[in-house]
């Protein structure tokens, strides 16, 4: 049996090397496959590449980095503000989602399914509807809180809008996490918190990471809800880019700001995959 497998493998590799050496025609399907994949990739990144190329164009027809002076200057504040908001939204989502996931997975919450499907409403709701609803809520229902035209208002909107994206991967990860690790930690003398921080959260890490990544991508680039809620002092990067297209027109500096935003997202996602790797897709260590 094993012999036959070995001989089959040997034959297979022999055939491969023959194909490589003898007939150039045999390569054609492989080349076509690659071309096909690259065409699609190109279509996906085309708008970004176009914006990037446009941002490098100098007014006299050459290429320059002049437009990026604006990015390094005034736009940096908007970027920083967006990053701060995103970070706060991530922290807020974590603080809500981890206890909520435990309640839903480990305890018998009555109406569990109803709660879960209701939570998803914020994901399905059109952003314009969401923005308008929050605006009305802030102005009439919660007018005693400093939410209208404020950072807190934006933060609340982001958390309400995105925490299911954090909650769901953590729920999945927690469901896959066998109770036995918590129990083992308890028998070894760990109290509830020690077990949570030393054992459970690290094991839920990939699920939590997935939630962080999704929160980041959504909140950092969020535009429409922000447009409804933000006041003059809440200029996020996305809002600023939009504002620029209206005031400055489609200039090189607008393109540079847009390209920079895209790059920041891109780099964060790449770093995330580098750090957490394929475990992100599995949710936990065990799936």
């Amino acid at each position, binding site marked *: 049996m094993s012999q036959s497998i070995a001989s089959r493998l040997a034959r297979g590799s022999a055939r491969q090397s023959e194909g490589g050496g003898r007939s150039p025609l045999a390569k054609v399907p492989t080349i076509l496959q690659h071309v096909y994949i690259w065409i699609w990739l190109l279509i996906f990144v085309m708008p970004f590449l176009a914006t990037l190329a446009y941002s490098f164009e100098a007014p006299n027809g050459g290429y320059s980095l002049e437009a990026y002076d604006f990015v390094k200057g005034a736009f940096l504040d908007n970027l920083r503000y967006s990053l701060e908001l995103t970070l706060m939204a991530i922290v807020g989502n974590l603080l809500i989602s981890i206890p909520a996931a435990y309640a839903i997975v480990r305890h018998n919450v009555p109406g569990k399914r109803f709660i879960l499907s209701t939570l998803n409403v914020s994901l399905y709701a059109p952003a314009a509807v969401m923005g308008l609803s929050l605006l009305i809520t802030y102005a009439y229902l919660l007018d005693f809180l400093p939410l209208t035209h404020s950072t807190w208002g934006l933060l609340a909107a982001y958390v309400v809008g995105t925490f299911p994206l954090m909650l769901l991967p953590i729920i999945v990860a927690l469901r896959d996490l066998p109770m*036995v690790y918590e129990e083992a*930690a308890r*028998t070894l003398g760990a109290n509830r918190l020690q077990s949570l921080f030393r054992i459970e959260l690290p094991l839920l890490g990939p699920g939590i990471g997935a939630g962080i990544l999704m929160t980041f991508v959504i909140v950092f680039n969020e535009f429409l809800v922000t447009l409804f809620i933000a006041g003059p002092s809440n200029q996020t990067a996305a809002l600023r880019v939009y504002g620029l297209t209206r005031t400055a027109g489609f200039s090189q500096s607008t393109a540079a700001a847009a390209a920079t935003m895209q790059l920041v997202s891109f780099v964060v996602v790449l770093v995330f995959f580098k750090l957490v790797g394929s475990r992100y897709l599995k949710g936990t260590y065990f799936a």
Partner: protein
Amino acid sequence: MSRVQLISVEKRYGQTLAVTDFSADIADGEFVTLLGPSGCGKTTTLRMVAGLVDPTSGTILFDDQVINGVPTNKRNIGLAFQSHALFPHMSVAKNIAFGLSMKRKPKREIASKVEEMLDMIEMTGFGDRMPGQLSGGQQQRVALARMLATDPRVLLFDEPLSALDRNLRDTLKYSILDLQRRTKKTAIYVTHDQSEAFAISDRIFVMNQGRVEQAGSQLDIYLRPATEFVANFVGDNNAIPGTIESIAVGEDGQRTATVSAGAFQLRGLALEPLSVGDRVLAFVRPENIEVVGGDIRDEADGLVTGTVEQIVFEGPTVRMTVDVAGTPLNVSASGVERLTLLDKGDKQVTLRFQDVSLVRQGAES
């Protein structure tokens, strides 16, 4: 080093009784096994001792102190899980050190203890490996080391070997016994594997449907089963229904009953409260039925004759089905005698029963 007592411990899940009326007094350093089929309540009992499950009623004591309500992490116990439960994100050394770092021991002390534990399980130099890089047997050994590192008062084992293959199981069960003997710690071991239970226990509690059917030494359980369930669950057994005709009390106070089983009679040990006229099941193990040579036709003194229906050579033993007055009995012969039986090929054989145990029929099992 602890005496463990359970007094009338009960656990209900809604209407379902998981464990009822469980009482045990486990001496310091004793190795006790809870043996029973799955769902018999043995694991629930162990988890109540560990504090992972709260008893519905009853009291659990360590060294005469009630520990109901004391959380697991304050009980100072060690629990070995079926799935070994090594923390997959920590190295072997970190796993072993975990309990000690929870106790905030100084780093140097932890490091030397980890080395000591690795030596003990003969895995010196494996400290930096991750659990996923170890074999099943190595993982379970690391789990044992992790459990022993904190010097727990009581060792609890929840079927720690059932996920391993047979050879490994045999080796590891003696390692566990050896560790327990060396550390002189009280141990409670849960298993559904009777050979495991027989090999390592000082005392066995046979459980069924949430109740203790019988508690006793290996010999008690094997030779003097108290209930029909124990007689059937532990080892092979022949059950012969009959009625007690008389009971003779010997000089040593042993009560020997004569049981009429239809066409033949047999004698067995009648434990209290069996009395004359009781309907009983007489249990006799296949290896305790002796074939006394085919030519004896004397039916006195507990000899009965039967017809061989089937005879199978299994190597070290010969297994026969013998029809005795309509009751088919399994007989297992070993030694040189088995070859003689095969050679002769007799149809009629005479049997002598030894170590017959009597259990009241219809009693709850």
